[in-house]
């Protein structure tokens, strides 16, 4: 269903007219390209250790310096784009899809279904993100797929609660009552009338959660639920870098900037998409 309104020319044009959105899309595509082409464009092997040249300053040879095992930081950031983008985006996708669905359904149908579903959400939300992540890690064991699942599941109840809140606000709007009056089924109403209305909000939230997901990855890899070494990720690079903050401040700074730019890109795209999709804008 999403494909249909994506391809509608008017909206594509609206998106393309939005310069911020286009800039964001270009930036996001650049990141995707970097992730894909990492082996070709990395100046060094990201796993190659050189203990005789550890914590080197940025400069010739190593453009962004080396880490505490003498590995090239630039190459690790380029390769790190792969894992960080996949983990960040996939986990938010998992979380948003699950969370939105649950929140909308509970909010729309109300009654005992709402009560039951929201109680499960309450139960899940009664675990702090980090503790829940730790539990998942200890039970599932490490691995990227499990990491995505864990972060996605950790985020989904929060997303569900937010969409549920918005749904409650929409529930009694006239146009929904009208749609029901003309005999539209609940799924059709949710799809045609509710979702488009909330898509802007959901997209903005999803882009916000991407930043959160990448941050959660950083926190979890610090505690051990990360992607196992030697694979570099921005999260565990920051965590390692923070250990050396007084020695080589740039170690944590560069992957931090990478996260910032990636998040910026997705946000710009998200805003543009929202403006393009929002039915009330036209």
């Amino acid at each position, binding site marked *: 269903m999403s494909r249909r309104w994506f391809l509608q020319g008017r909206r594509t044009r609206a998106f393309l007219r939005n310069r911020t959105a286009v800039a964001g899309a270009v930036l996001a595509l650049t990141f995707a390209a970097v992730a894909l082409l990492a082996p070709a464009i990395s100046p060094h092997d990201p796993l190659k250790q050189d*203990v005789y040249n550890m914590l080197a300053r940025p400069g010739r040879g190593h453009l962004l310096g080396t880490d*505490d095992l003498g590995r090239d930081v630039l190459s690790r950031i380029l390769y790190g784009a792969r894992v960080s983008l996949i983990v960040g985006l996939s986990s938010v996708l998992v979380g948003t899809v699950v969370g939105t669905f649950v929140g909308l359904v509970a909010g729309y149908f109300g009654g005992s279904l709402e009560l039951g579903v929201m109680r499960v959400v309450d139960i899940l939300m009664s675990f702090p993100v980090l503790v829940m992540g730790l539990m998942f890690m*200890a039970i599932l*064991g490490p691995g990227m797929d499990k990491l995505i699942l864990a972060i996605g599941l950790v985020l989904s109840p929060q997303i569900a609660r937010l969409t549920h809140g918005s749904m409650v606000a929409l529930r009694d709007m006239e146009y929904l009552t009208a749609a029901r009056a003309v005999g539209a089924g609940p799924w059709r109403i949710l799809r045609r009338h509710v979702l488009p209305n909330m898509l802007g909000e959901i997209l903005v939230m999803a882009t916000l959660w991407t930043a959160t997901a990448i941050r959660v990855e950083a926190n979890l890899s*610090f505690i*051990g639920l990360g992607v196992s070494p*030697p694979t570099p990720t921005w999260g565990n690079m920051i965590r390692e870098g923070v250990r050396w903050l007084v*020695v080589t401040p740039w170690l944590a700074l560069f992957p931090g900037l990478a996260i910032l730019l990636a998040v910026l890109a997705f946000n710009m795209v998200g805003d543009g998409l929202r403006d393009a999709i929002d039915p009330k804008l036209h």
Partner: protein
Amino acid sequence: MRRYLTFVVVGMLVASCAVGQAQVLKIAFDAADLRTLDPHYAAATMDRAVVDMVFNGLVRYKPGDITVFEPDLAESWEMSADGLVWTFYLRSGVRVHPFAGAPDGYELTSEDVVFSLTKAADANRSAYSGEYVGMEFEAAGPYAVRITLDRALPASLFLPKVADYAGGFIIPKRAYEALADRFATNPVGTGPFRFARYVPTQKVELVRHDQYFRGVPRLAGVEVWYMPDVTARLSALSTGEIDIIEGVREQAWVDVVKRIPNLAVDVFGPGETEVLHLNMTKDPISSLLVRQAIAYTIDRSEVVTAIGADVAEPLCGVVPPYLAGGLTCEEVAAVGLLYKQDLALARALLAAAGYPTGFEISANITERASYRKPFENIQAQLARVGIVLKITVVDHSSFHTLIRQDVNPLVHYEAWRPSADAFLTRFYHSDSIVVTGAKPDTNFSHSKSVDVLIEMARYELDPARQAAMWKQAQLTLLHEVASYPLYVLKFVFARSATVNYGYELKSTLALYPQINELTTK
């Protein structure tokens, strides 16, 4: 009212001048919280530190130098001719810290010492009961304690059991009974500082024990802070909010902090041994040729460089050279068991074992940097001969469980043990084999070949012959490549330059720069 206030303020000023600049020293550890302050359980650095300030042993390691024993609660001691009976003569006038039920404390006597040693020997009330098997404790008058052994032990193995370390710390009987379950977070002892307050996940406050038997401590008190972030610790040190911090045990950190004005860095021993244990029951590590190939692949000096020369001291036998019976790298080289890096030879050995292109194994490692970093370096080194080491990072608690379930072909382990006997027994005696041993412990390599030597050496009263047996056992282990010793990792602490410990710091079993009655800031 106003006059009253002035009076109070002036009074406080006078009081503070009277104690002559006595100050509270603050020390911060790399820990999230305390675990237990019962000295017979305390194992982690931050807990051993508090315990060290609050309690005494019968004898003590000389502050700052673990090679010398001196009197502590006992003024003197003697061993019977057959080596089976040790008698300790206690100092009189040793005052126990005040506690609920005894606001002035009381005098420590042999009754307390017997109680404490009995507790240390009881597996239900002590983590170190294994050290006291076959011993009996009795009072011989209020100031004398007699310990009877079922087999004679050399002094080098016996005195550590009654020294200020682990089970040797003396717990006052009445205080322990009065506090019961609360003792672990409200310790009462005889040391220079007494427990005052515990704020969970933040700090423990100690104040000085005015009746300490070595004299009134110069500091008014000590605060022990739990600060797991190293940059936060260093920041607090640089602003003067903290006086001593646990540092990062790596060269680059030491070098940078040394250059900061008004700060000093202490790098001291004995440190912990970092050893790679090779599981001799897991294919393909079970093949001697493969284990030799691994040994010839690893370049010890590369790992040592990765950590740093001041902090990591190369270790060539499994017992560090400054313990009786330890092996120096020269001694190992002299018998040709150094396994100096030789990649061609390693490849040839792999080919002979049937793995010409290498093989793949996977192993767990804890997230802690002091384990993970060298293991990542080993991973990169092994890749040079085609051995693919897949690493799975798990949390520290899972790691300890997993390696004890015998799932790892390679175990990187960091440990300190007080004697060659403890090192060899715990890691290489067949009783200690994980899962299947008679007393499953930390024998990750499944070594069985040195049982006899370990047992003979344990009861050998002649120090020279004893040391020779320990060395022989280690050479046997090197021969079968049960493990590959990497280095000894020393302790790193930084302090404000004005802190004066009151002794020369070379090595200490307390695992932190000991703070005692002579320390000033």
